[in-house]
């Protein structure tokens, strides 16, 4: 495990998202509730839409380009054959911590 502090929770609006740049491309951090957060790839597998710009509802996000809906727990697209990678993320004292192990593993591969 290799946890990185990437910012404060209030930097992301409620039911909003921000992206972070990584060596693997952009990862989106979704704030689905006051203290509820998810991390997943920012890129929609359909046509590459930026998921951090989508509408966030419950624990899902809708891609702004063609309305694919992804479950942020699993990364699976609803009713479509496609999914996005999800990453471990948690809130500690109102700071957002991302586990970069997965990111590092993939960049090494």
């Amino acid at each position, binding site marked *: 495990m290799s946890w*990185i502090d*990437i910012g404060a929770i209030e930097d992301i609006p409620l039911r909003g998202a921000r992206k972070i*740049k*990584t*060596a693997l491309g952009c990862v989106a951090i979704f704030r689905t509730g006051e203290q509820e957060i998810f991390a997943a790839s920012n890129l929609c597998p359909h046509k590459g*839409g930026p998921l951090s710009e989508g509408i966030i*509802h419950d624990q899902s996000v809708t891609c702004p380009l063609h309305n694919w809906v992804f479950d942020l727990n699993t990364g699976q697209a609803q009713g479509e054959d496609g999914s996005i990678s999800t990453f471990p993320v948690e809130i500690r004292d109102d700071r957002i911590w991302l586990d*970069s192990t997965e*990111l590092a593993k993939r960049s090494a591969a």
Partner: protein
Amino acid sequence: MKQKLVVIGAGMASGRAIEHLVETAPDAFEITLFNAEKRGNYNRIMLSPVLSGEKAYADIVTHDEGWYAAHGVHCRFGEHVVGIDPEMKVVVGENGHMPYDKLIIATGSAPFIIPVPGRDLPGVITYRDLDDTNAMISAAEKGGKAVVVGGGLLGLEAAAGLAERGMEVTVVHLMGHLMERQLDEAAGYLLRGDLESRGITIRTQASTKAIVGDGRAEAVLLEGDETLPADLVVMAVGIRPETRLATDAGLEVARGIEVNAQMQTSDPDIFAVGECVEFDGNLFGLVAPLYDQAKVLARTLMGEEDAFVVKDTATKLKVTGCDLFSAGDFADGEGREDIVLRDPSRGIYKRLVIQDDRLIGAVMYGDTADGNWFFQLIKDGTEIEEMRETLIFGPSFQGGDTADPLSAVAALSRDAEICGCNGICKGTIVDAIEGGASDLGMVRAATKASASCGTCTGLVEQLLQVTLGDDFEMPAAQPICTCCDLTHEDVRRLIKSKELKSQDAVWQELGWKTRNGCHVCRPAVNFYLLADWPLEYRDDPQSRFVNERKHANIQKDGTFSVVPRMWGGITNPTELRAIADAAEKYDVPTVKVTGGQRIDLLGVKGEDLPFIWADLNKVGLVSGHAYSKGLRTVKTCVGTDHCRFGTQDSTGLGIKLEQVLWGSWTPHKVKLGVSGCPRNCAEATCKDIGIICVDSGYQISVAGAAGMDLKETEALGVADTEQEAIDLTIAFVQLYRENAKYLDRAYKWVAKVGLDWVKARVVNDLDERARLIEAFELSQSIYRRDPWADQTKAAAAFQPLADLTLEAAE
């Protein structure tokens, strides 16, 4: 030569009779219609949904002045008839005489007011017409306590509506159980429980002694001297035929105006129809027999033979969530047997009354789906011996093993009545469907089935499904999305009537099945809330599609386009220089002139947006809202400034309109055009609102389209002055904001409500126009500002939250 036909009273019966006449014999009569109410006919049985806020007045109008004008009927609305002179064959109106060859009296009924002291106090109202309904709605706005006197159909609908609007309601009923004329004691008890669970207090066997108060009603005094405090007292104990004109004219009147089976009174040239008549000792209060009478009357006037007969009628209560049905005779008696089904946990009660192997009465509560089938058995006198054991389970258990709801409809005979209000049988509807009526609207237009109270809508849809098979898609009341069961229209109405002012209130109060909606419903709810409560609710960017959240249009590669506003299409060298500089500074790959007379910078990176906006802001350029469901552009021609044909300053008017309207959120985008002369260089006649300047003023037309659909605008009105043109435009936009479904362009909305409805509010009703303008200004006090200037202050939010490119590869 045309005969002169005069009609007194615009109600449901007379409206239907006139409709029959003008449709089948448009040239036979010159018709004049008097109505004491200042409006045309509306569906009186739908006043309860208006009271509860589930429907608006516009939804229940059946024939308005526009309809009558289109059919050549001369209307004298708001004018009382003072008398009838049968000798001279003249009707005396407040504003003058009107001779007739044939006369129809359709004065309806008046509410019965129990003769107790205090009945005339202000704050005591009856429940009969739209004015009563509006009086109750405005009384309910102040909250407080209401006492409804009368626990019949009308009284309970009034009580439920007032409770829905937040009043503390007590129903005072003289008899031992509610709706004793339609329900037996058991069903009355279940109904009482349902109403009590909504917070309504029910007092049965309670007799009103007096209404007391100093200057206005303050309390109801019961026999036994108990006092019920009341800010509002509603008298709903019953109605009696309104016969004064007929009595004064010397016609034969018993309880009602006496008519024969041709609806003819004791004077052969005078007819009567509706709730004011008495036929064969019967009075009529439900709509189905009234429509029968209207049909017979119309045929009689056209010289055809027909006769009215009294039929059984069935009753339904229009209180959402209380399903009850009763038909026929269900009193206990010698030789009568009952079949009863009780399921208290589900709140279901059904009782069938049988005599001589025939069903003679049915009372149902909680599950009324089979009501029409039982009603048909009663009317037909069908022998039920063979199916007696399973009779109470309804038609799907008769001679079949399927529980498919469609099979019940398929099993109905051709002469089974589907629409009780209009007396339309299954065969008529099926014939219409086979003749090409492929959706609910077309069936309604062709047969009138389900066009009155609407409770048979589900049955008609099932008939469409049975008849058309897979060709039919269930349409109509589509919920917004799978998050809820309500339509856009329902949600809009409930947000207004229940005063829901936050998203959470909507999710909780309207039974949303998801935590906070989805990408389909949440943007719509966000718009409805900000349109209805501009001060209390603030726009939520997280409920907006990315373009409206980012104030720029997302492109397929994830970059954005930036379109600064050019008021009325006018720009200058300073603005153009700033645009050119910005395009170079931010490496904008494409610069395009748009169809809305401005310049689009395409391919701007999301991170750069706040900086390019700040640069454009410096020379006064603001957001063009090229991304919003709001005011886009006002396209103009050069008008009198330069053009030799121009009649008015079209450019100047366009700029003024754009400056008034910009920043407003609307259900969908709004585009305007202003042309300086009828050559129409600004192509105004395919816009949402188009203005054509002429020598004498400004022609304003609305509801055009030039997208997926192509449609010319329709004339809204003519303005003499520039200010009036601006006023009409603002009022139209505000009416659209207040009423349209989210994502309906103006032309789609106008097609739904009708241009006449729009004109009545925007053009003819000056008070309403002023209210609309005021409401628009109130909203604009919040939203008429540049979102770009606001966003540049939060530039950090446009940058990545963190950059891990250097750390991730450790």
